[in-house]
C-alpha cells in the first residue's frame, strides 16, 4: 500500500465505490465517503494526506468542504474532481488553494499522478512548517 492516505468524496455511490476499488487495486491506500459532512467526520478520526473531492453534492458542497478542510487541516491537499465543471467553481476552488481542479472523466493514471504530486507537496509544506511529517514509506 501507498505511504499516503487518500479520501475520496463523491455522492454517487457507484462511481465512488468503483474509483476507490480501482485506486486500491493500484496500491493506493484509499477510502471513500458519500458526503462532505461524512468527509469532515472522517478527517476528525483519521488522517488523510490527499482528499479527492466532488464539487456538486447535496448538503455541503465541495467548495464549502474545501474551505473547512483548509481551515482545520491546512496541510491536507485537496484535488477537486467534478462532473459539472464551471469557470466559477474552478477559480473559486483554486483560489481556496485546491491542489488541482480536474474535470470528469479523468484517466486513472493521471489521477494517481496528481495524487502523488499532491502528497509530495504536502511533505514539503510540512517540512517547511516544521510540523510532524506524514508517514513515509
Amino acid at each position, binding site marked *: 500500500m501507498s505511504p499516503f492516505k487518500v479520501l475520496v468524496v463523491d455522492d*454517487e455511490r*457507484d*462511481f465512488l465505490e*468503483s*474509483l476507490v476499488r480501482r485506486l486500491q487495486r493500484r496500491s493506493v491506500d484509499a477510502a471513500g465517503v458519500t458526503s462532505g459532512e461524512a468527509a469532515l467526520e472522517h478527517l476528525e478520526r483519521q488522517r488523510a494526506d490527499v482528499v479527492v473531492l466532488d464539487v*456538486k453534492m447535496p448538503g455541503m458542497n465541495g467548495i464549502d468542504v474545501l474551505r473547512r478542510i483548509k481551515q482545520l487541516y491546512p496541510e491536507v491537499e485537496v484535488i477537486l474532481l467534478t*462532473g*459539472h*465543471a*464551471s*469557470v466559477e467553481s*474552478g*477559480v473559486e476552488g*483554486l*483560489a481556496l488553494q485546491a491542489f*488541482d*481542479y480536474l*474535470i*470528469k*472523466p*479523468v*484517466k*486513472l493514471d493521471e489521477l494517481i499522478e496528481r495524487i502523488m*504530486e499532491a502528497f*509530495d*507537496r504536502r511533505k*514539503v*509544506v510540512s*517540512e*517547511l512548517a516544521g510540523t510532524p511529517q506524514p508517514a513515509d514509506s
Partner: protein
Amino acid sequence: MVKRLSKFLNRLGRNGNGAPDKTLHGDLKLRFREFKYLLRANNEVLAIIAEIEQQLAEGGQVGLDFLRSRYIAASAKVYKMIRHLNHISGGRYPQLEGAFHRIRADIDQILEEGGGSRSGVIILPLEDLEQGESHLAGSKASNLAELARAGLPVPPGFVVTTEAFRRFMEFSGLGGQLRQAVMILEGSSPEDVETFSHLLEQKVLDAPLPPELEKELMAASQRLGGLGARGLISLRSSAVGEDTQSSFAGLYRSMLGVIPADAAQAFRAVVAALYSPEAVVYRRQRGLLDQDAEMAVLVQAMLEPVASGVMYTTDPLGGGKGPLLISAVRGLGQGLVDGSVDPDLYRLERSHPPLLLDYSSGGQGESLGLGASGLSRHSLDAAGREEPPLSEGQALELARLGLELEERFACPQDVEWALTEPGRLVILQSRPLQVLAARCGEAAAPSVEPLLSGGQTARPGAGAGPAFLVRPGVELKDFPSGGVLVAKSSSPALAAALPRAAALVTDVGGVAGHLASLSREMGVPALVGTGLATKLIAPGQEITVDAGGRRVYPGRVAQLTGPEPSTALCRPRPGPTPYWHQAAGLITKLNLTDPHSPRFTTARCATFHDIIRFGHEMSFKEMFRLGDKVGRDPGGGALRLEARLPFELWFIDLGDGLASGAGPDLKPEQVVSIPGAALLEGLLDPSVDWNRPRPVSLKGLASVFSASLLTPPKDGQVRDMGQRAYAIVSAEYINFNCRVGYHFTALDSFCGAQQNDNYISFRFHGGAATEDRRQLRAELIERLLSDMDFSVERTGDQVSAFIKKYPAGRILELLEELGRLVLFTRQMDMLMSGRPMVDWLAQAFAEKNYNLASNGGEGEPT
C-alpha cells in the same frame, strides 16, 4: 580595483560561514515544485488551444458545448498557472489575475449574449434557421435549411436544437452519468463498452424530457403532422459534425412514419443512437470523445413518395470527372440505404443540360410504403416492375437540381431525394460526397531527391520559394514576401513574417507549440522539428516544402506547388463566422510573440494564450533568480562535492537530484539529476586541465602576441579564495551559480520527458581584466554559444543565451559542453589580446584543444 575585489571576496567569505538554513531549502523545494506544476499547466493549455484550433480549421463543425467544456478546462489551468507564477516570484505579477478576469468576462459575455435571440431556443422552424448555425441545428438540418432558403424543394419541418439536447441530458442527470461512466470504463474490454453503451441507450430511452421541451415538441409535432402524409412525421439525427469529415453515415437513427403523439419517444430513440455501440466504436476510431457528442434532431412532415433514392453528383471513384449517378427505388428509400434492395441506376452526363447516358433496372420486386401506423411492404405487380421509378424527364430534372446543389455547396454532393405523387421532386438531404483523389494528385511524389525528410506536419500543404534562414545578424523585417522561412527554433517571434511566408521549416519544435498554432491560424504550410533544416538548406536556395508529405525538395517542384492537393472530401464553403468563434479567439490567439518587445507586458495580455506565453517566459526569469537567493545565503542541507575543481561545488537537492544516502563528501556519481550529471560530466572532463598553467608560448602566436600576456595567474591563488558554486538540482532540473576567477556564470536548465519543457538558460558577466579584454572574452563566449545553436545576446561583457524545446539527448550534450566551456573560458581575459585571438580560441574549443596545445594547426593566427 583592489577595493572592488576585496568587497567581492568579503561577500564570498560571509557566504561560506552561513549557518545551515532549513527554511531556505524547503522554500526552494516548494518553489521548484510550483515551477514544475506551471510547466505542466502551460502544456495542458497549449494542448487545449491546439484542439480548439484544429476543430475550427476543419470547418467549424463544433458545438457550443465543445467550446464551453474546453474553455472551462483552460480557464482552470490558466488560473492555476498564474497562481504558480506568483508563488515562485513572491507575488510579482498580481496584474496577471486581473487580465485573466477581464478575458474571462469577455468570453462569458460572448457566449451568453452573442447568441442573441437564439440563446435558449429549443425548437426552431427550419425556415427560421440562418447560415452559420450548425452548432445549434447540427449539420444535416443546417444544409437543408440552406436549400430551403434558396427556394429548393424540401419538406417542411423544425429542429430540436443542441440546446434542447443539453437540457435533456442535464435534466435527466444523464450528462453527469455519462461523464462518470466514461471514467469508470477507461481501459475496459470491448464487451464492457458494448454493455455500457446498451445500458446508456436504455437510460436515454427511459429518461424524462424537461417539461418545457416535452410541451413544445408535442405542440410543434402536432402542427407538422397536419402537413405530412397520413398525418405522420419523421425524426432524423442532425448531430453536430455529422455529414462532414466524419460522416457517421448510417450510424445514427432515423424514425420514419411516426405518429405525432409519439414524438417524445421517437426523439429519445434518435438521441439514444448517439450511444449505440457502433457510434461509440466509430467515435473511438476517429478520436472523438463520447462526452463531446451533441445532437440536434430534425423533425419533418412525412412524405409518401412513389419513388426515392440517392444521387451522387459525380462518380465517387471517378476523381471528380465521372458521370452523375442516380439510384432509385419505388416507394420509400429505406431499403436502398440499408442495402436490402437493388436499386435501378441512371447514369447522366454532367452537361448543361444533363444528358441521360443509360438506365439499368435492379429488378426490384416490392416497395416500401406507408401503412395505417407506420411502414409497410407491397409486392410490385408486373406493370409496376416494368415502369421505371423515374421518367427520363424526371431524371434530367433531378440531375439539374443535383448540379445546382453542387454549385451551391461548392463540392460534389451526396443527395437523398423523393418523388411525390403529383410528380414533384423533393430534396431530403444533401451532404458532401467523398470522392477519391484524382490521379494527378497521387502522382505527387516527384522524382527529385529530397533535401531532407522527417519532422512533423504542423499544417499540411506545399509551398515553394527562396529559403530565408533566420540567424543571428539577420533581420526578420528583411524576410521577402513568398520566401520560405527556415529557422532553428519554432519561436513565436517569427510570427511577424508568417503571413508573407510560402512555407515554414524549423529544426526544433512540435505541433503544439506557439508557432505551429500560428501557422495553422494563418494557413501557412509548416514542417517543424526536422532537426537539420538550417544545416541542409542554404540561404537564398530555392526550395519546395511538402509539409503534408514531410519532405523538402531542392528547386521548385511543379506538381507540388500547384493548388493545394485535393483531399478525398472537399471542404464545405465557409459561411459567415459564427459569433462564438470570437470567444474561441480569446482563448487561442497569440499577440505576445516577442519577449524582447516593450509590449511584452501583463497589460497586453488579451487572450489566455497571451497569459500563458507571458507566464512561461517569466517563469524562466524567476527560476534564474532562485540562484541569486542562494548566492547571498547558502541553504542548509547543502552538500559539498568531493571533486577536483577550481572552486567548491555545493549541491542542494530539491527532490531526487542526489542519490538517496548522499551525505557530506558527496561523490560525483551520487549526483543523479539528469541535467546535473551532464553538466558535471563536462566540468570534470579530464581533457580540460584547468590546473595546468597555460602554455606561455604558443607556436605561431608568439610572433603576434607578447608572451607575458599569455601567463595566467597561478591557479592556487584562485582556488584558495574559497569560492563557492551552487548547484540546485532535482531529477530533471539544475540551477547552477558559479564565480570562477572574477566572473559570474549562471545556468538554469530543465530536461525531462516532455521536449516542450526542455530549456537551458545561461548567463555570464564580469571579469577582472580591463574593459577591452572583458568584452573580448564575452565575444568569445558569445561565439561559442552561437556555435552550439543558442540564441545569444551580448551587451558589453554580459552574455545571455537561451535554447529551448530540444530533445533531452541534445540538451544533455549541450550541458556537458557548457561544463567544459565554463572551465575553458575561465580567466580567458588574460589571453584576450585581440579579436584574432577570439577566432583562434573558438576554433581550439571546437577542436577540443582545451589546453591550447600547440599543434601547428591551421587555426593559429599568423
